[in-house]
C-alpha cells in the first residue's frame, strides 16, 4: 500500500510548516502538543495531583472532621515516625505479607500453574469448562463474591458448615486470615492460570519430549525444560499478583479487618484510619509507606528479571 502522505507536489502554503517540523508525520511541535494535551491533563488531574496531595497530607494533621479539617497544621515527619512506631502498623504489615505470600505467591501462582499444567493435555471441552469456572471467580464483581463467601462461611447455616457437618464453626472469627487467604486464592488464580497457559504454549513440545525420552520425571521436566523457558513469565506474574494482592481491598468486604484487627491488611488499615477514624494525614503517611513497600517489591522482581537477561 502506498501511504496517503506521499503526494509528490506539496501545496505552496504548507511548505513553511513542513520545514520546521522535525517529526515524521509533519505536525510540528505545537500541534503535536495539542493532541497530547487532553491526555496529559487527565493524568495531571487524576494521578499526579492526588499523589502530590497525598504527600502534602502526609506532613499535616489533616482530619476528615473537626478543627483540623479547616485549618490543618504542618507537622513535618511526625506522621511518618508515628506510623513506623505504631504497633498496629507492624501487625498490619505482617498480616499483609502473610496475605501476599500465602495467597498470591504461593496460592495463586502454584495453583494457577498447576491448573495450567494439568489442563495442557486435556480434551478441549474439559479445558474450556475448567477455565471458564476459574475465570468466573475472577470476573465477578468484588461485592458479589464477598457476599457469596459470607454465605459460604456463615456460622449458622453456612454452606461450608453444612458440607463439612460442622455447624456453629465461625470461620471468619476463628480463622480470619486463613479465610481471606483462601478467598483470594480462589479469586485470583485465573490470572496466573491464563498467564501460565500462554507461557506453557511457548515451551517447544520437542523440549518436553527430550526430557521424556531421557526418562525424566514430572519434576525433572519442570526443572529442566519448562521453568527455565518461562522464568520471565513467572517473574512477571509474581510481580503483578504481588502488587495487586498487596493493595487489594476486597478482604475488607469479608472481615472488615476484624476480629480485633486480626485480618487488618494495610489497605484496610489505611481505610479504617483515614476514613473510619478521620485521620487523613496519618492515613496519607501510611499510604506513602505502602507505596515504598510496593516499590521495593517491584524493584526486587525487576532485578531478578534483569539478571536473567545478563
Amino acid at each position, binding site marked *: 500500500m502506498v501511504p496517503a502522505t506521499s503526494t509528490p507536489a506539496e501545496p505552496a502554503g504548507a511548505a513553511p510548516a513542513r520545514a520546521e517540523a522535525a517529526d515524521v508525520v509533519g505536525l510540528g511541535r505545537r500541534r503535536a502538543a495539542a493532541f497530547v494535551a487532553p491526555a496529559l491533563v487527565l493524568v495531571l488531574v487524576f494521578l499526579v495531583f492526588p499523589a502530590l496531595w497525598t504527600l502534602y497530607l502526609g506532613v499535616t494533621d489533616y482530619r476528615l472532621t473537626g478543627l483540623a479539617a479547616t485549618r490543618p497544621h504542618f507537622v513535618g515527619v511526625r506522621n511518618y515516625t508515628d506510623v513506623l512506631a505504631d504497633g498496629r502498623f507492624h501487625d498490619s504489615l505482617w498480616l499483609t505479607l502473610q496475605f501476599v505470600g500465602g495467597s498470591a505467591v504461593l496460592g495463586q501462582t502454584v495453583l494457577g500453574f498447576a491448573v495450567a499444567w494439568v489442563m495442557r493435555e486435556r480434551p478441549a471441552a474439559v479445558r474450556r469448562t475448567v477455565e471458564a469456572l476459574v475465570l468466573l471467580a475472577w470476573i465477578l464483581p468484588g461485592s458479589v463474591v464477598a457476599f457469596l463467601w459470607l454465605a459460604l462461611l456463615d456460622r449458622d447455616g453456612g454452606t461450608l458448615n453444612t458440607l463439612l457437618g460442622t455447624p456453629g464453626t465461625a470461620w471468619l472469627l476463628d480463622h480470619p486470615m486463613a479465610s481471606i487467604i483462601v478467598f483470594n486464592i480462589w479469586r485470583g488464580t485465573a490470572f496466573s492460570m491464563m498467564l501460565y497457559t500462554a507461557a506453557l504454549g511457548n515451551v517447544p513440545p520437542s523440549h518436553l519430549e527430550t526430557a*521424556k*525420552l531421557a526418562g525424566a520425571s514430572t519434576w525433572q521436566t519442570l526443572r529442566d525444560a519448562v521453568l527455565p523457558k518461562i522464568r520471565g513469565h513467572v517473574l512477571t506474574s509474581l510481580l503483578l499478583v504481588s502488587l495487586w494482592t498487596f493493595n487489594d481491598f476486597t478482604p475488607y468486604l469479608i472481615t472488615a479487618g476484624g476480629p480485633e484487627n486480626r485480618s487488618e491488611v494495610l489497605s484496610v488499615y489505611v481505610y479504617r484510619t483515614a476514613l473510619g477514624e478521620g485521620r487523613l494525614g496519618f492515613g496519607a503517611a501510611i499510604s506513602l509507606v505502602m507505596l515504598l513497600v510496593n516499590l521495593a517489591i517491584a524493584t526486587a522482581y525487576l532485578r531478578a528479571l534483569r539478571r536473567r537477561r545478563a
Partner: protein
Amino acid sequence: MTGVELSALTKDYPGGVRAVDGLDLAVPDGAFFALLGPSGCGKTTLLRTVAGLETATSGTVRIGDRDVTRLPPGRRDVGMVFQDYALFPHMTVADNIAYPLRIKKAGKAERHAAAARVAASLGLADLLGRRPAELSGGQQQRVALARAMAARPKVFLLDEPLSNLDARLRLEARTFLKKLQHELGVTTLFVTHDQAEALAMADLIAVMEAGRIRQLGTPAEVFRRPANLFVASFIGSTPMNLVDARVVDGLVEAAGARLPSPVRVVGDEAGESLVYGVRPEYLDFSPVPVDGAFHGRVVVVENLGTSSLTTLETGGGVLVHVVVPEDAEPRPGDEGWAVPRPGRSLLYRGGELMTDDVAAAA
C-alpha cells in the same frame, strides 16, 4: 545390536484420523533406514510411535527382542534428534549432551567424561562450554546428535534431520551422518520428505502413503523399479515419464510410439489401459528419426548444469521429458526422438508394476 520390528501397527488420532494403518515393518539390525513420504503420510507418527511419544492404538513395537509397545519413552533405550534439535538454551553444550545421563543419575565425573568423549567424536570438543545460541545450525545439530548418542541407545531416531540446514550445509551433513551411522553401526530410522535425501543416505527406504508402506527396498530398487505409480511419481528429482499405454501386437503403444515391452506380454493385456514409465535419465535423445522412440517437438529446454531437461510434445499432446547431456541440447522447436534404454522402462497395470512373474501367473 538390535533391529526394530513393527507388526500390524495402527495409530488413530482422536477425530478419526488414521495416521498409521496396520503397518508391518522389520528394520534390520544396524540399518540406516529412511521413512520417506509426502507430508501427512504418517511417517513422523510412525517414528514417534517407535520412540514412545505416541502410543500405538493397536499392534506391537519390538526393539531387539523386547516388546516395548507399552513402555514409556524413557525405558525404550532410544535416542532421538528432533527437527528443531530441542537443545536446552540455558544449558551449556556439555550439559546438554550429558542430559540423558544426568536423568539416569550418572555421577558428575562420569557425565563430563561421556560428554567430552562424544563431543570429541563429533568435532565439538572446543564448544563444550558454549550455549546453544552461540552455535551455528550445523553445530547445533551435532550437539543434538551427541545428546542422542551419549546414553548409548540401541536405536537412533532422526526426525527430518536435515530440514533446518541451508542447502550447502545439508550436503555436508548428509555425508557426515552417513559416515557416522556406518561407524557406529547402530540401527537408525530417519524421517524425510525429500526423496533425494533418502536415496543418498539410506541403506533401505520405506516409501509411505496414507499410513501404509507402498514400497520397501534399497535406494537402487526404489529408484529403478518403483513398485507402483505412487512411488514412481514420488521418487526422482526429475519426475518419471508416466504415459498411458496399450499393448498392441506384443508391442507397447504409448504417446504415438511403438515400443518393445519391458515385460513378456501374453495377450490378455491387449486393449487394457496400462501406464508406461521411463525416467528422463533413461531416455536417449536423437535429432534424427529412430525406431521404437517417442517422437515430438521440443517445447522447453531446462538447464540442469551438466545436462538439460528437455520436454518433447508428442503428436497426441503428451509431454515426454528427456535428459540430454551437455553440448547436445536441441533448441525449442526442433524435432526430436527419445529412445528408452533397454531394461530401464517399466509397465504398470492397475497402478502396480508388472513383472514377468506376475505376467506369467496371470
